Structure formats: C-alpha cells, structure tokens
C-alpha cells in the first residue's frame, strides 16, 4: 500500500492521469461530434432520396395505374443499389419489390411515417438476415401499399468505423500515457530524486558534496549547476566564517590580553595620577587599534556576504583611477616615490565604486609599506586595461615582491609576512581586496615583476549605454558651488 501510494503521489503519475483524462475527453468529444454530424447528414440524405422516389412512384401510379407501377418497381429493383421497394395488394401479397421479408406491422400501419426496420432482401443468403433500412410506407388508392426505403448498411458501417477508431484511439492514448509515465518517472523523477537525496546529505552537514551533472545540458543539469554554484558559495561563506572565528580567537585575544595586563598593572603599581593617565592613554590607543581590526573584519565579512550584483554602478575606470592617484600622489611623493598611472580611455566597469577604490587604496598602501626597493626610488604604477572581456586593475611596485609560495597565503586574514610586525597594520588589507575582487566576480592575483610585485584584480565591464553614474566629472571644483554636503 505504501509503495502504491508512493507511486500515485508522484508528479509523473498525476501527469499521466491528467494526460489520459484530457486526451480521452478531447478525442471523445471530437468523435462524438463527427459521428453525430455525419449521422444527421446521412439520415437527411436517406429521407430525401426516399421522398423523391415516393413522389415519382406515386406519380407513375396515378398516371399509369398499378401495372406501370409494378413494371417500374421491377425494373428499379434489379439495380443493385441501396434502394428498397415493396408493393403489396390489400391482402398483403407482394406484387413487386426486392424485399423478401420484413415485420408485417410495417405494412399494416401504412401511415406515411418513417421507420427503421430489419429486413431481408430478395436473392440474399440467409446469413444476411439482419440488415437495417429506413423505410416509408404509403397506402395507395385501391388498397395497395407501397414501401420505399434505403438500406442503412453504409451508414452503419461508417458508425462502426468511427466507434472502432475511438476505441483504438483510446488505447493509443493510454499506451502513450503509460510510456510518458515510465519515461517521466524513470528519467525525470530519478534526477529529482537524486537531487533530493544529495541535498539531504548536504543538509546533514557534508558541504563538500555536490549534485550530479549528467552533462547533457538539460534543465536538470542547469539546475544542478546553479545549485552547485550556490553550494560553493555557501561553503566559502561557512569556511570564511570559521576562519574569522579562528583568527579572532587567535589575533584578537592577544591585544585584549595585553590590554588587561596593562589595566591590571596600572591599578596595582601606579602611584600618581600621572601614572594612571599614561596607562589610560596606552589603553585608549590599544582599543583604537582593536577597533580598527574589528571594523576591518566586519567590513570583510560584510563584503563577502554581499550578493554579487549588489549595488553595481557604471563607473568610468579612468576617472576612478585618477581620483585615487590624485589622493595618493602627494603622499607617495613625500615618501620619495613616484606614482605612474596608465589607463585606457573609455573603459567602463560595472562595480561598487567605493569598494573598488578601497581595494586599490589598500594595494597602494601595501606597495608603500612593503614595495620599497632596497636601493633607488619607490615606483608605483597604477594601471587599468581591458583584457579578455575583463577590466584588469593592477598596482605594481619595484620592491622585493612576495615569494611565489606565499602569494596565496598573504590573502588570508591576519597573515603578515613581516614577522616582526614592525609596520602598523592589521593583516587584513589584502583579505579585503580579495573579498572586493570576489564580489565583482574576479580574483586577486599576484605576479612577481622582477623586480617588484604586481597585484591585479579584475572587474566586469559595464554594458555599453547602461544607466547609472558615469562619474565623469573628475573633481572639478567648479559646477559644484551649490554643494552643501557638510
């Protein structure tokens, strides 16, 4: 019973049932319609023929008497068509005609009405007893009765044909439904069941499991592929969540402990107000640093949790790059370096401007901190170009670079290659760049430029002519005189 109810509950079964029902109904309707109409049409024709013959025969009788009528009927009876005739006298003796036997009632009630009767034709074999005909019987003057009719064999054969077609058609429909059902339940439902099973496994906690892809690019493959992409993303989120927790445990506990020690020792040792003051000031700067780390972490987590496509705008890459250059050029010059920019005109990216700016700023600040060559001047090159339908933004320095095997690792949270941690920083800058690149469907990649490091992120180009903000005006003070943003 459970197996049966399982089968009857499937979509495949319901679909097949529906298919049978709808097709039967439709074809039944069609066949009934056709047979009704042809029946009516044929009956009408029969009646018309009968009436015409009757008129003709009664004319002959009126004009030529019974002899002429008998002759005409005899002649006509010899034609092997569907017409039937019978002429009897008042005693019921057949005078002419081609009917051998027929219910006596028909001749007795010769009222001119139409009747459907069974009859036997003259000269037919016995097996042919049950033929049907449509007849009209008239009583003529002098007690004669005349019957004219048409054999209904043709019409009945046609009705039978239609009935048989209907039966055959129903069988075909049922067979087709069964085949559909088998196909649907075997192929389609099996795929759905597979997807259901796999997702159950995934729900129990195995996030590495993926849905099977058959490779024929049907809708199930597409479903599986997009569900798999979703799972990839969920897995990434879960993993980065775990990383954050681990890293917070490790990297934030250290400064918190330091803070605690500082406060405790101030409480124990400080004798003067001045001592407390120093301790508090130290504590404050330590909490500032902690807050900075915390904000950076939250920000990365936020970016990672954003849906790709959120808040994208059309941004002129050239003006974006020159804005950053304008902000950082003085600083780099003060540090004794040079900033070069190299951007192609007319390149528009679809991105979250603020985040991309922050990503590039982080890369530039990294170059400032770690990209200084051992001799000679620091040179930072900020460039943007279109390559393989992506917009590649790169920040290049001429320092010592990052060893190949470390290039992946530096993108992780809190990783700092500067073991002494002498430069101020959180070890989160590149994680943020990576998150920004990911959000834009790209990646953060490093290559060693010998000398120097090249960091690249890539963005999608904006659809030409798509709406949004072109950011074309490059900070020209004029034209902004109504600005009250303060």
């Amino acid at each position, binding site marked *: 019973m459970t197996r049966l109810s399982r089968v009857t509950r499937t979509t495949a079964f319901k679909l097949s049932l529906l298919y049978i029902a709808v097709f039967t109904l439709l074809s039944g309707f069609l066949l009934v319609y056709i047979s009704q109409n042809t029946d009516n049409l044929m009956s009408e024709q029969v009646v018309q023929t009968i009436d015409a013959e009757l008129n003709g025969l009664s004319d002959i009788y009126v004009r030529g008497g019974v002899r002429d009528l008998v002759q005409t009927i005899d002649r006509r009876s010899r034609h092997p068509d569907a017409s039937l005739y019978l002429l009897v006298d008042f005693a019921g003796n057949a005078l002419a005609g081609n009917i051998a036997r027929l219910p006596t009632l028909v001749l007795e009630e010769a009222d001119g009405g139409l009747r459907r009767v069974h009859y036997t034709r003259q000269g037919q074999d016995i097996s042919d007893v049950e033929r049907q005909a449509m007849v009209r019987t008239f009583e003529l003057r002098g007690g004669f009765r005349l019957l004219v009719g048409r054999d209904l064999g043709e019409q009945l054969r046609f009705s039978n044909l239609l009935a048989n077609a209907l039966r055959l058609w129903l069988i075909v429909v049922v067979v087709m439904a069964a085949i559909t059902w088998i196909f649907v339940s075997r192929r389609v439902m099996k795929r759905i069941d597979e997807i259901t099973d796999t997702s159950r496994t995934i729900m129990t906690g195995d996030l590495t499991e993926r849905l099977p892809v058959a490779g024929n690019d049907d809708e199930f493959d597409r479903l599986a592929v997009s569900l798999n992409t979703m799972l990839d993303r969920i897995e990434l989120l879960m993993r980065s969540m775990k990383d954050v927790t681990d890293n917070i445990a490790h990297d934030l506990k250290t400064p918190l402990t330091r803070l605690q020690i500082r406060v405790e020792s101030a409480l124990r040792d400080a004798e003067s107000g001045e001592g407390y003051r120093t301790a508090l000031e130290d504590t404050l700067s330590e909490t500032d640093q902690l*807050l*900075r780390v915390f*904000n950076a972490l939250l*920000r990365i987590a*936020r970016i990672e949790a954003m849906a790709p496509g959120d*808040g994208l705008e059309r941004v002129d890459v050239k003006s974006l790059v020159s*804005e950053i250059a*304008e*902000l*950082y050029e*003085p*600083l780099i010059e*003060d540090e004794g370096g040079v900033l070069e920019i190299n951007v192609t005109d007319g390149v528009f990216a679809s991105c979250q401007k*603020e*985040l991309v*700016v*922050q990503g590039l*700023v982080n890369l530039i*600040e990294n170059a*400032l901190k770690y990209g200084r060559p051992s001799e000679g001047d620091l040179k930072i090159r900020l460039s943007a170009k279109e390559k393989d339908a992506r917009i590649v933004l790169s920040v290049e320095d001429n320092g010592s670079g990052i060893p190949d095997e470390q290039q992946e690792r530096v993108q992780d949270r809190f990783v700092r290659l500067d073991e002494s941690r002498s430069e*101020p*920083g*959180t070890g989160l*800058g590149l994680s943020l760049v990576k998150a920004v690149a990911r959000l834009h469907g790209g990646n953060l990649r490093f290559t060693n430029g010998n000398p120097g490091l090249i960091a690249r992120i890539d963005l999608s180009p904006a659809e030409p002519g798509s709406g949004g903000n072109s950011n074309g005006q490059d*900070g*020209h*003070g*004029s034209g*902004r*005189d*109504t600005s*009250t*943003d*303060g």
Partner: protein
Amino acid sequence: MLRILVIEDDPEAANYLVKGLSELGHTADKAGDGETGLQMALESEYDILIVDRMLPKRDGLSVIEELRKSGNHTPVLILSALGQVDDRVTGLKAGGDDYLPKPYAFTELQARVEALARRPKTASQIETTYTVGDLTLDRMAHSCRRGETEIPLQPREFRLLEYLMQNAGQVVTRTMLLENVWEYHFDPQTNVIDVHISRLRGKIDKGFGAPLLHTIRGAGYTIRDAAQ
C-alpha cells in the same frame, strides 16, 4: 552655545554625551526612546538632534522621517553601530544630515556637531566668499587670495580649503575631510589626508604672517585667525 537633544537608549552612552556636550558649553537634553525623542524634538526648538539608530518604541530612522514629514528641518546626526556605506546611505536618505558610526571619539562627534550647526540652512544662506583673517576664498570666481597675493589652487585643494573655511574656527577631523572633500567612506591606514593638508598649508600659510591652518592634536585641523 547650542541646544542639543540626544536620543539614545543606553543610559551610560547618553549621560556621557550629555556631560561632554555640557562641558563644551552646550545645553543638552536626553530622551531614552524614539517616542519621547520625537515628542521632545517636535515640542521644543533644538539646534541639533543626535539620534541613535536602534531605539526602543520607535527606531531612529522613523523618528527622523516623522520629523521631516512634519516640516522640522533641525540638523540630525545619526549615531549607529551600523557603519557601512549602505547603512550611511539609508540613514542619509531617511533625512539624516551626518552619520557617525559607533564607537566614536568624542572629538569626532564634537567636530561633526559643530559643523552641522554651522551648516547653511537654505541656499540663500550659502556664502559666496569665505574670509578668515586676510585669507579670502571666492567660490564664484574660484579664486583664493591672501592679502594681496593670488594663490593658485588645484581643484581638490580648493574643495579642501572651501570645506575648512566653511567650518572656520571649528575642528574638522580627517574622516570628515575624506568624506566631504573626496567622498570616500573608509579608513585609510596612512596619513594621506595629512599630506594634502600640509601641501595646502604650504600654499596658504608659508611666507605669510601668522599661520591660519592649525593641527589639533588627536582630533584634526582647524582654520582660524589667531587674532580672533
């Protein structure tokens, strides 16, 4: 002296704010929930409202929206633990005038409150020239002179000086400069703003008498005439 209403549900944070603002010579009232805050803001005249975003009874953004609907245009500074760019955008769209993410330094809050109070309320009140001491900035002619000397400024330097002079006599923090002059809302790790300030200082102060552009340690910058 400013009349300030602090709408904040955490009593410790509210008391800290009220105390700090009173020490600066302002009058500060406090409201512990959105409902009371809205009532008080509607009933009396305040110069500035400081509104926390998450409040009991009525959330901060709806307080601001309600105020704006009733035609009240008192400048609002939104305080919030939500500090991302999109949060700011929602806050400012709801009718807030400035947005300060928690936790904040009191100096930052003070600078922002004072900048808000000085902000021109209607377009006609926007001055076309700013003057501090013998330094004049003509926004129409897009020119800057100190005494008799014409000082050529880059567009961004002009914006920077314009913002500083708009808030003349008040402290302006680095974050405020980055937000208002460059329109970026993140925290650079380097002293990138300081460098721009020092370049500007080189143009407007170097070789002239008393310096006008001052660094306020631990807070930011201010432009003011020492004689005033």
